[in-house]
């Protein structure tokens, strides 16, 4: 896969990770916000219930306070005494009660009025009025007292019964001191109420009667109404439920008292615990609803009725902050992912392009060079395909191996010592190395090893780049061996020549020697003319043979570049005179003239003997071609700017233009038919050329048929 794609994918992965992280943190913050709302809502419902319980507790305290009123006690005492005197008091009471309940309201007026107009009734009424005034609403809907026979003694308003002793509350209050009645509809007061019945005792603790207070529920439930109006959530709904799961109050507009809540959707939740929190979707409206439940725990020694307060919210309303948070977080996450992806794209491109270019370079390098990386000890940690191909090892075989496994025995230890010395000192080493492949076959590589430094500036690894030069090396070796063979041949030729020279000269020694002896009458006596001529012929041919040997040796030396030149300063004029003298003996019998035309006094630093050899050679050549008697040879030496020019001029037949160029070639002879007793090997001019050029000069010829020939050469002064 392309690097850019990889980078983009990794950036997208990063973005997704951030999104997941964001979602998780969002989830937890949402949960904690929900927890918070739940807690607040529970606290609120608990608070409201507490307030309600506290109010009921206060009413109980007040009812107990009423029961201690001495005026009430006295009037009940009087009533008790009155009833004590009635003979069949039970029968009397039943008659009175049936009379109370059977007649119409208007008809029992006389009886009721008796009670209502009772002094105590006025007291009770004033108590009700006092509280109504204090609280601004009816607190006590009704208060009435009974004597110990359960008969009403005083009452703030008309009661439905006259005889109360058959009522459960009366019995409980008489026996246990107090009775609390859960919410009901008070028939006599005409309100939804709770009742508090308290036993009244005289100062000695004897049972006097019971006082019952009917508490207006509206007053208590105002607390709920108030809480709703104070709530920041308009959708909030309060529902107060009694111990039997009947609605006793609701802020809903069309609620019904004692409606059974067990049919409502939150019933199951109600059953689960004292107070908690649940979110449900309303099956009709499809709107999420959030319920919070709290159960009343009473207040102080009042245990409470076990009421449940339900707070119901519209989730959209209550969780709007969460939704907002949700939206903000989502937006931030989306923005972040977007930024990350865009940055990733830009970054990937900016990184990928130079890396791709480098990769292309590496690809080309891998294709043409053997690339390997080793650690600082030379252990291979990377080798490219080309490396494996040339070394014939697989990658697995190479990795971990020391580079030494490729070492051939070709190079001396000093070679590798130099290599390690160079690279371990941080320098680049480069040379041609002969290595050994897996199958033992050798291969040549041009090697560059470069040390790679770590962060601390210490060498960590080496990168080697090699090019396969085996073919070049093979060619080179072929050329070398060819050259060596030629060299060997040359040397053998040289050795052979040395040997042959010695072997030829040795027999020449007695030949030349005896000829000389024969020509000297003092040694072996006189020879006749014919004998003398014969000896001359032997001697001349022997000397010719000797020159041939010398020329061959010189030619060989020149060819091998082994001719030594011994340069020192000498007088050219003296040399020229000496040469003329040397030829004096040879010229005499032929009447050939040799003139030295040199006028300049010249000193030259060069090899005098070799220059003499060249001049002698040229003069000998000339002698072969000039006519006897009229033959004339001139030698001359001129001082020019940087050279000294020597010249040998003859009045021979001249040389054709085409042949002039060939004169200095080895074994070339211009005209063998004209050769005389000096003979020739065809080496003379070639040797002259070799010597002159060896001394840094040049040799040439000027000639015209019929006008003679001039050989001249220039020798540099320095």
């Amino acid at each position, binding site marked *: 896969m392309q690097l850019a794609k990889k980078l983009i994918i990794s950036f997208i992965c990063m973005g997704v990770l951030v999104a997941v992280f964001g979602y998780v943190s969002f989830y937890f913050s949402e949960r904690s916000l929900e927890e918070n709302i739940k807690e607040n809502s529970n606290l609120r419902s608990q608070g409201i219930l507490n307030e309600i319980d506290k109010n009921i507790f206060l009413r109980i305290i007040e009812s107990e306070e009423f029961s201690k009123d001495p005026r009430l006690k006295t009037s009940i005492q009087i009533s008790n005494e009155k009833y004590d005197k009635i003979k069949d008091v039970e029968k009397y009471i039943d008659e009175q009660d049936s009379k109370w309940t059977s007649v119409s309201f208007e008809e029992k007026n006389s009886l009721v009025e008796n009670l209502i107009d009772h002094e105590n009734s006025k007291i009770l009424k004033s108590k009700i009025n006092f509280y109504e005034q204090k609280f601004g609403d009816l607190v006590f809907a009704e208060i009435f007292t009974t004597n110990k026979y359960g008969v009403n003694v005083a009452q703030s308003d008309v009661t439905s019964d006259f005889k109360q002793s058959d009522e459960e509350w009366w019995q409980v209050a008489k026996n246990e001191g107090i009775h609390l009645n859960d919410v009901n509809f008070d028939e006599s007061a005409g309100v939804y109420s709770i009742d508090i019945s308290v036993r009244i005792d005289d100062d000695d603790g004897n049972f006097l009667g019971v006082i019952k207070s009917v508490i207006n529920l509206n007053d208590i439930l105002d607390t709920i109404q108030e809480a709703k109006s104070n709530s920041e959530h308009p959708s909030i709904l309060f529902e107060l439920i009694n111990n039997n799961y009947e609605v006793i109050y609701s802020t809903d507009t069309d609620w019904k008292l004692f409606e059974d809540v067990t049919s409502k959707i939150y019933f199951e939740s109600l059953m689960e615990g004292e107070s908690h929190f649940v979110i449900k979707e309303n099956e009709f409206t499809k709107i999420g609803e959030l319920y919070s439940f709290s159960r009343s725990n009473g207040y102080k020694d009042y245990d409470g009725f076990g009421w449940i307060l339900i707070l119901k919210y519209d989730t959209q309303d209550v969780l709007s902050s969460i939704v907002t948070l949700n939206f903000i977080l989502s937006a931030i996450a989306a923005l972040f992912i977007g930024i990350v992806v865009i940055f990733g794209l830009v970054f990937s491109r900016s990184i990928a392009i130079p890396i791709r270019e480098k990769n292309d370079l590496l690809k080309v390098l891998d294709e043409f060079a053997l690339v390997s990386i080793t650690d600082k000890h030379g252990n291979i940690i990377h080798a490219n395909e080309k490396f494996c191909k040339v070394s014939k090892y697989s990658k697995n075989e190479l990795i971990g191996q020391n580079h030494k496994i490729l070492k051939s025995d070709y190079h001396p230890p000093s070679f590798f010592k130099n290599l390690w010395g160079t690279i371990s000192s941080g320098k680049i080493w480069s040379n041609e190395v002969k290595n050994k492949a897996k199958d033992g076959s050798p291969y040549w590589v041009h090697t560059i090893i470069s040390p790679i430094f770590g962060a601390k500036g210490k060498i960590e690894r080496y990168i080697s780049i090699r090019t396969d030069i085996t073919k070049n090396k093979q060619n080179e070796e072929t050329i070398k061996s060819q050259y060596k063979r030629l060299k060997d041949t040359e040397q053998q030729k040289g050795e052979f020549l*040395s040997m042959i020279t*010695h072997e030829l000269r*040795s027999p020449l*020694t*007695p030949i030349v*020697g005896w000829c*000389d*002896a024969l020509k000297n009458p003092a*040694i072996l006596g006189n020879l006749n003319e014919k004998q003398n001529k014969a000896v001359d012929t032997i001697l001349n041919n022997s000397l010719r043979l000797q020159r041939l040997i010398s020329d061959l*040796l010189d030619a060989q030396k020149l060819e091998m570049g082994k001719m030594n030149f011994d340069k020192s300063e000498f007088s050219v004029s003296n040399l020229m005179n000496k040469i003329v003298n040397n030829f004096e003996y040879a010229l005499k019998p032929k009447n050939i003239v040799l003139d030295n035309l040199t006028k300049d006094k010249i000193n030259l630093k060069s090899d005098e003997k070799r220059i003499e050899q060249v001049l002698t050679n040229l003069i000998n050549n000339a002698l072969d071609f000039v006519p006897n008697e009229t033959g004339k040879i001139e030698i001359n030496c001129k001082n020019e700017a940087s050279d000294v020019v020597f010249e040998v001029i003859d009045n021979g037949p001249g040389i054709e233009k085409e042949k002039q160029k060939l004169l200095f070639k080895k074994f070339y002879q211009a005209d063998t038919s004209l050769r005389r007793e000096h003979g020739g090997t065809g080496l003379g001019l070639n040797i002259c050329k070799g010597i002159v050029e060896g001394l840094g000069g040049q040799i040439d010829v000027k000639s015209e048929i019929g006008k003679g020939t001039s050989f001249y050469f220039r020798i540099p002064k320095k």
Partner: protein
Amino acid sequence: MKVLLIDDNSEITELFDTTLTAKGYSVQVTNNGKEGLDLIKKKESDLVLLDLAMPGFSGEDILKELLKDGPINDYNIYIFTASVISDQDIDNFIKLGAVGCLRKPVRLEDILNVLEKHQARN
């Protein structure tokens, strides 16, 4: 003047024995290197002509043997050879104490010149 010629080739020794004796020199010859060495050591000759390339104990061996006792200036040795030797080689022999060098084949005239010059020097 006494001349000692050491050369394995008897034709050469015979030639110079004859010619030089005829020219009035006292010539002693040997074809054997070892014998030659002994004769040189006796220092009875005024001049020694020493061939280099000899089978067995060669002229070079003689020189080496003589050089063991120091320079050979006292022996008046002329190198007398048919071998290919350069001017450089001759210089080296002279540095070691040889008097000079004669290349074979030698002209009678040349060898007589050498003897005369040597005689004149001493």
